[in-house]
């Protein structure tokens, strides 16, 4: 066959495309379990780090130990829009009706189920020709850190728009649901060295020991002060401010805003717990 004839070109092009697709499909399938573990590990590591483990401690552990530790010491609390606790089984049932396989779901952590469910929501709403909120039961989740059965902290996911894109993180609260144990941002697109400093220990470390409730018990959250907060405030008032990142006013403000918003969503639920004493 002539090398420049149309039929040769066709056959060659098809062969190359098929070979490339098969190769990529194989690679994708072969690496999928490993990728899922990587995503899972990432979430778990962040939860561990916000509940007080240092990076060195986490790095020194094996991946399997980290997952085992998560399974042993952490629990996910799933709440609906009205702050009623939802059972994992109910969420699973929801997912089963949309066509997920039972044995697939058994392998997953609750937080993975929630993200699966949220992803599916948009598609479902689109099919029914309705907006997502009509379908959305408003599920939100938080994590409990309870090593050896003793509740040590509540871990709340926070997320919102920074300067360049979404920022994702966690804030951990002590069982009094007032004092901060730690804050951590694990995914963002802020400029390294400016807004990107938000992930650095010098910034997040400031949150440790701060309070989210004012003296009379009303919700207040923690603001990010432009400059050094200690120059202006003193005493207890300092419990509600951290120093901002210089050169990153928008990122700093954004963090203060979405942290407040996300904490507020849980405030009603927290109030019930505070009233009923520590669980």
């Amino acid at each position, binding site marked *: 066959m002539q090398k420049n004839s149309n039929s040769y*070109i066709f056959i*060659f092009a098809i062969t190359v495309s098929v070979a490339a697709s098969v190769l*990529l499909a194989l690679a994708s399938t072969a690496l999928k379990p490993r990728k899922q573990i*990587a995503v899972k590990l990432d979430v778990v590591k962040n939860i561990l780090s916000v509940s007080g483990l240092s990076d060195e401690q986490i790095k020194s552990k094996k991946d399997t130990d980290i997952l085992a530790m998560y399974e042993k010491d952490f629990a996910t609390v799933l709440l609906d829009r009205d702050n009623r606790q939802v059972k994992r089984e109910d969420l699973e049932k929801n997912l089963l009706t949309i066509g997920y396989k039972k044995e697939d779901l058994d392998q997953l952590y609750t937080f993975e189920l929630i993200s699966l469910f949220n992803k599916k929501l948009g598609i479902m709403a689109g099919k029914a020709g309705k907006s997502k909120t009509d379908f959305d039961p408003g599920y939100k989740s938080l994590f409990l850190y309870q090593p050896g059965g003793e509740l040590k902290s509540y871990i709340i996911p926070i997320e919102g728009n920074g300067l360049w894109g979404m920022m994702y993180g966690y804030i951990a609260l002590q069982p009094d649901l007032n004092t901060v144990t730690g804050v951590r941002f694990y995914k963002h697109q802020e400029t*390294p*060295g*400016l807004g990107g400093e938000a992930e650095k220990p010098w910034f997040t470390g400031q949150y440790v020991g701060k309070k989210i409730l004012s003296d009379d018990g009303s919700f207040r959250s923690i603001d990010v002060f432009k400059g050094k907060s200690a120059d202006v405030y003193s005493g207890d008032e300092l419990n509600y401010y951290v120093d901002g990142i210089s050169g990153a006013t928008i990122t700093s403000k954004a963090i203060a805003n979405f942290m407040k918003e996300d904490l507020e969503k849980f405030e009603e639920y927290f109030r019930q717990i505070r009233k009923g004493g520590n669980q």
Partner: protein
Amino acid sequence: MTTAVKENKQPLFGKKEREAVKDPLWDNNPITLQVLGICSALAVTTQMQTALVMAISVTVVISFSNVIISLLRNLIPSKIRIIVMLTVISSLVILVDQVLQAFMYDMSKQLSVFVGLIITNCILLGRAEGFASTNKPFPSLLDGLGNGMGYGIILLLVAALREILGVGTFFGVQVVPDALYEMGYKNIGLMILPPGAFIILGMIIWVQRTISKKYEAH
């Protein structure tokens, strides 16, 4: 283009082969002399770590793509050669991306879209078209390695300067002594912004061309 290697007669690392590796490192560096692959050289060089992973990824992809295209060089119809090369390159890039996602998840999050953009890195297509399509697999492999490393060295150089000047760290470890900060020294914020990369890269090109005495013909 005339690297006619006579098999069995020449040593594995003859002069030509050595040149294939050495040339792109200095005399014919893809970034500083051919000014290719600038986009990623600017984007991933705020830290040493990302620059290193990027350099390795590009070297791996360019070496494999050169070998594959060299093996196919007598089969590829000239009319569709560019798209075939791109298919090979993009498949390899997607593979690298998948492997990064599976085994270096944190890194793949940081590199995000830039791994995918290796596909559009002109160095890869340039070497495929300019070298691998007319040369045997082994010299093509060396050419790929050489160009990948030539690209990587500049990347690391830019990243080192940007990270040290801009953040005061090297591979995430603080290198600018605290004493210097106390004396009033401040990190140069401009260095971590895109313009900083332009300035540094421009200076590197200037210095490199002055030393190597290789200029574009006017």
